[in-house]
Protein backbone atom coordinates (compact mmCIF):
# COMPACT_ATOMS: atom_id res chain seq x y z
CA UNK A 1 0.00 0.00 0.00
CA UNK A 2 0.97 3.64 0.06
CA UNK A 3 3.63 4.88 2.39
CA UNK A 4 3.49 7.84 4.74
CA UNK A 5 2.54 11.03 2.95
CA UNK A 6 2.93 14.60 4.08
CA UNK A 7 1.56 17.84 2.77
CA UNK A 8 2.46 20.37 1.74
CA UNK A 9 5.94 19.32 0.66
CA UNK A 10 7.11 22.93 0.83
CA UNK A 11 5.73 25.83 2.77
CA UNK A 12 6.92 29.41 2.88
CA UNK A 13 5.47 31.56 5.63
CA UNK A 14 6.02 35.11 6.72
CA UNK A 15 7.11 35.52 10.29
CA UNK A 16 4.08 35.63 12.52
CA UNK A 17 1.84 33.50 10.32
CA UNK A 18 0.27 30.26 11.47
CA UNK A 19 0.95 27.06 9.54
CA UNK A 20 -0.57 23.58 9.53
CA UNK A 21 1.36 20.54 8.36
CA UNK A 22 -0.44 17.31 7.58
CA UNK A 23 0.68 13.72 7.95
CA UNK A 24 -1.14 10.69 6.51
CA UNK A 25 0.38 7.60 8.13
CA UNK A 26 0.24 4.09 6.75
CA UNK A 27 -3.25 2.71 7.27
CA UNK A 28 -3.54 0.72 10.48
CA UNK A 29 -0.38 2.07 12.05
CA UNK A 30 -0.91 2.76 15.72
CA UNK A 31 2.13 4.88 16.45
CA UNK A 32 2.86 8.27 14.92
CA UNK A 33 5.88 10.50 15.54
CA UNK A 34 6.69 14.06 14.53
CA UNK A 35 10.30 15.24 14.17
CA UNK A 36 11.97 18.52 13.31
CA UNK A 37 15.17 18.35 11.26
CA UNK A 38 17.31 21.45 10.90
CA UNK A 39 19.89 21.63 8.14
CA UNK A 40 22.87 19.43 8.86
CA UNK A 41 21.31 17.93 11.97
CA UNK A 42 19.60 14.70 12.85
CA UNK A 43 15.84 14.64 13.42
CA UNK A 44 14.73 16.03 16.76
CA UNK A 45 11.75 14.36 18.40
CA UNK A 46 8.70 16.58 18.83
CA UNK A 47 5.79 14.39 19.86
CA UNK A 48 4.31 10.89 19.82
CA UNK A 49 0.77 9.59 19.36
CA UNK A 50 -0.61 6.16 20.09
CA UNK A 51 -3.83 6.13 18.11
CA UNK A 52 -5.51 9.42 19.07
CA UNK A 53 -3.72 9.78 22.39
CA UNK A 54 -0.74 12.12 22.55
CA UNK A 55 1.43 10.20 24.98
CA UNK A 56 4.61 12.22 24.74
CA UNK A 57 4.94 15.87 23.79
CA UNK A 58 8.19 16.48 25.60
CA UNK A 59 9.96 17.60 22.43
CA UNK A 60 7.62 20.42 21.44
CA UNK A 61 9.86 23.50 21.68
CA UNK A 62 7.24 25.98 22.80
CA UNK A 63 3.53 26.46 23.32
CA UNK A 64 3.37 27.76 19.75
CA UNK A 65 3.61 24.14 18.61
CA UNK A 66 0.50 21.98 18.78
CA UNK A 67 -0.22 18.55 17.34
CA UNK A 68 -3.36 16.48 17.09
CA UNK A 69 -4.55 13.16 15.73
CA UNK A 70 -8.26 13.25 16.54
CA UNK A 71 -9.36 10.02 14.87
CA UNK A 72 -6.19 8.07 15.30
CA UNK A 73 -5.09 8.31 11.69
CA UNK A 74 -4.25 11.66 10.04
CA UNK A 75 -2.23 14.02 12.19
CA UNK A 76 -1.70 17.76 11.97
CA UNK A 77 1.19 19.74 13.39
CA UNK A 78 0.30 23.38 13.85
CA UNK A 79 2.79 26.15 14.47
CA UNK A 80 1.41 29.48 15.56
CA UNK A 81 3.12 32.83 15.08
CA UNK A 82 5.99 31.27 13.14
CA UNK A 83 9.51 32.52 13.75
CA UNK A 84 12.63 32.19 11.64
CA UNK A 85 14.08 29.54 13.92
CA UNK A 86 11.10 27.32 13.03
CA UNK A 87 12.55 26.91 9.53
CA UNK A 88 13.31 23.21 9.15
CA UNK A 89 12.08 20.00 7.59
CA UNK A 90 9.24 18.47 9.58
CA UNK A 91 9.17 14.70 9.34
CA UNK A 92 6.35 12.40 10.27
CA UNK A 93 6.83 8.68 10.90
CA UNK A 94 4.42 5.88 11.66
CA UNK A 95 4.84 2.38 12.96
CA UNK A 96 2.51 -0.55 13.34
CA UNK A 97 2.88 -1.37 17.00
CA UNK A 98 1.68 0.52 20.04
CA UNK A 99 5.14 0.38 21.57
CA UNK A 100 6.50 2.49 18.73
CA UNK A 101 9.61 0.37 18.76
CA UNK A 102 9.18 -1.43 15.49
CA UNK A 103 10.25 -0.08 12.14
CA UNK A 104 9.34 3.56 11.70
CA UNK A 105 8.30 4.52 8.20
CA UNK A 106 9.07 8.14 7.47
CA UNK A 107 7.24 10.48 5.16
CA UNK A 108 9.07 12.75 2.71
CA UNK A 109 8.82 15.71 5.06
CA UNK A 110 7.56 19.27 4.79
CA UNK A 111 10.23 21.90 4.30
CA UNK A 112 9.11 25.02 6.14
CA UNK A 113 10.83 28.31 5.42
CA UNK A 114 9.93 31.28 7.56
CA UNK A 115 10.87 34.63 6.09
Amino acid sequence: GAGVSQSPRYKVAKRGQDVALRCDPISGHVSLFWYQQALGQGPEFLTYFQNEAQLDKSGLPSDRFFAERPEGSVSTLKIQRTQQEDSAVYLCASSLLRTGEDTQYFGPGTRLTVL
Partner: protein
Amino acid sequence: EDKVVQSPLSLVVHEGDTVTLNCSYEVTNFRSLLWYKQEKKAPTFLFMLTSSGIEKKSGRLSSILDKKELFSILNITATQTGDSAIYLCALRRASGTYKYIFGTGTRLKVLA
Protein backbone atom coordinates in the same frame (compact mmCIF):
# COMPACT_ATOMS: atom_id res chain seq x y z
CA GLU B 1 21.64 14.32 29.61
CA ASP B 2 21.13 11.62 26.99
CA LYS B 3 23.22 12.04 23.89
CA VAL B 4 24.28 10.33 20.69
CA VAL B 5 27.57 11.16 18.98
CA GLN B 6 28.39 9.89 15.52
CA SER B 7 31.76 9.80 13.85
CA PRO B 8 33.14 10.62 11.46
CA LEU B 9 30.92 13.53 10.44
CA SER B 10 31.69 12.86 6.82
CA LEU B 11 33.58 10.33 4.79
CA VAL B 12 34.57 10.01 1.14
CA VAL B 13 35.58 6.60 -0.20
CA HIS B 14 35.87 4.82 -3.51
CA GLU B 15 33.63 2.06 -4.75
CA GLY B 16 34.67 -1.27 -3.31
CA ASP B 17 36.03 0.16 -0.08
CA THR B 18 34.78 -0.97 3.32
CA VAL B 19 33.60 1.65 5.78
CA THR B 20 32.90 1.61 9.49
CA LEU B 21 30.62 4.22 10.99
CA ASN B 22 30.55 4.82 14.72
CA CYS B 23 27.79 5.75 17.13
CA SER B 24 28.59 6.31 20.78
CA TYR B 25 25.96 7.17 23.33
CA GLU B 26 25.15 8.13 26.85
CA VAL B 27 21.71 7.27 28.11
CA THR B 28 19.84 6.59 31.27
CA ASN B 29 18.24 3.18 31.03
CA PHE B 30 18.98 2.04 27.47
CA ARG B 31 16.29 0.27 25.46
CA SER B 32 17.28 0.16 21.82
CA LEU B 33 19.57 1.68 19.21
CA LEU B 34 18.54 2.09 15.58
CA TRP B 35 20.35 2.85 12.36
CA TYR B 36 18.76 4.71 9.46
CA LYS B 37 19.87 5.70 5.96
CA GLN B 38 18.76 9.13 4.76
CA GLU B 39 19.26 9.79 1.06
CA LYS B 40 17.13 12.77 0.25
CA LYS B 41 14.30 13.36 2.64
CA ALA B 42 12.89 10.35 4.46
CA PRO B 43 15.15 8.19 6.63
CA THR B 44 14.78 4.49 5.92
CA PHE B 45 15.22 1.90 8.63
CA LEU B 46 18.28 -0.35 8.58
CA PHE B 47 18.70 -2.08 11.94
CA MET B 48 17.44 -2.13 15.51
CA LEU B 49 19.83 -3.39 18.18
CA THR B 50 18.93 -4.24 21.73
CA SER B 51 21.48 -6.84 22.82
CA SER B 52 25.25 -6.63 23.02
CA GLY B 53 27.43 -8.69 20.74
CA ILE B 54 24.77 -9.93 18.36
CA GLU B 55 25.51 -8.87 14.81
CA LYS B 56 22.63 -7.84 12.59
CA LYS B 57 23.30 -8.30 8.89
CA SER B 58 21.55 -7.31 5.70
CA GLY B 59 23.45 -7.85 2.49
CA ARG B 60 26.61 -5.77 2.58
CA LEU B 61 25.54 -3.94 5.73
CA SER B 62 26.04 -5.17 9.26
CA SER B 63 25.83 -3.66 12.70
CA ILE B 64 26.72 -4.57 16.24
CA LEU B 65 26.16 -3.08 19.66
CA ASP B 66 28.48 -2.93 22.68
CA LYS B 67 26.44 -2.00 25.74
CA LYS B 68 29.44 -2.10 28.03
CA GLU B 69 31.46 0.44 26.06
CA LEU B 70 28.30 2.26 24.92
CA PHE B 71 28.73 2.26 21.18
CA SER B 72 27.53 0.69 17.98
CA ILE B 73 29.17 0.36 14.60
CA LEU B 74 27.68 0.10 11.14
CA ASN B 75 29.83 -1.64 8.55
CA ILE B 76 29.36 -1.42 4.82
CA THR B 77 31.49 -3.71 2.70
CA ALA B 78 32.17 -3.39 -1.04
CA THR B 79 30.62 0.08 -1.09
CA GLN B 80 28.67 1.24 -4.13
CA THR B 81 27.73 4.74 -5.27
CA GLY B 82 24.17 3.98 -4.15
CA ASP B 83 25.41 3.78 -0.58
CA SER B 84 26.03 7.54 -0.66
CA ALA B 85 23.75 8.96 2.01
CA ILE B 86 23.61 10.24 5.55
CA TYR B 87 23.60 7.43 8.10
CA LEU B 88 21.74 8.23 11.30
CA CYS B 89 21.93 6.53 14.66
CA ALA B 90 19.03 6.87 17.13
CA LEU B 91 18.58 5.85 20.72
CA ARG B 92 15.57 5.11 22.86
CA ARG B 93 15.35 4.86 26.64
CA ALA B 94 13.57 2.06 28.40
CA SER B 95 10.96 4.02 30.20
CA GLY B 96 9.34 7.34 30.69
CA THR B 97 9.40 8.48 27.10
CA TYR B 98 8.72 7.44 23.53
CA LYS B 99 11.41 9.85 22.42
CA TYR B 100 14.10 8.77 20.00
CA ILE B 101 17.36 10.74 20.22
CA PHE B 102 19.17 11.03 16.91
CA GLY B 103 22.80 11.79 16.25
CA THR B 104 23.78 14.36 13.64
CA GLY B 105 24.64 11.60 11.20
CA THR B 106 27.63 10.57 9.12
CA ARG B 107 27.59 11.80 5.52
CA LEU B 108 29.05 9.10 3.29
CA LYS B 109 30.01 9.76 -0.29
CA VAL B 110 31.11 6.85 -2.47
CA LEU B 111 32.99 7.79 -5.62
CA ALA B 112 32.85 5.68 -8.75
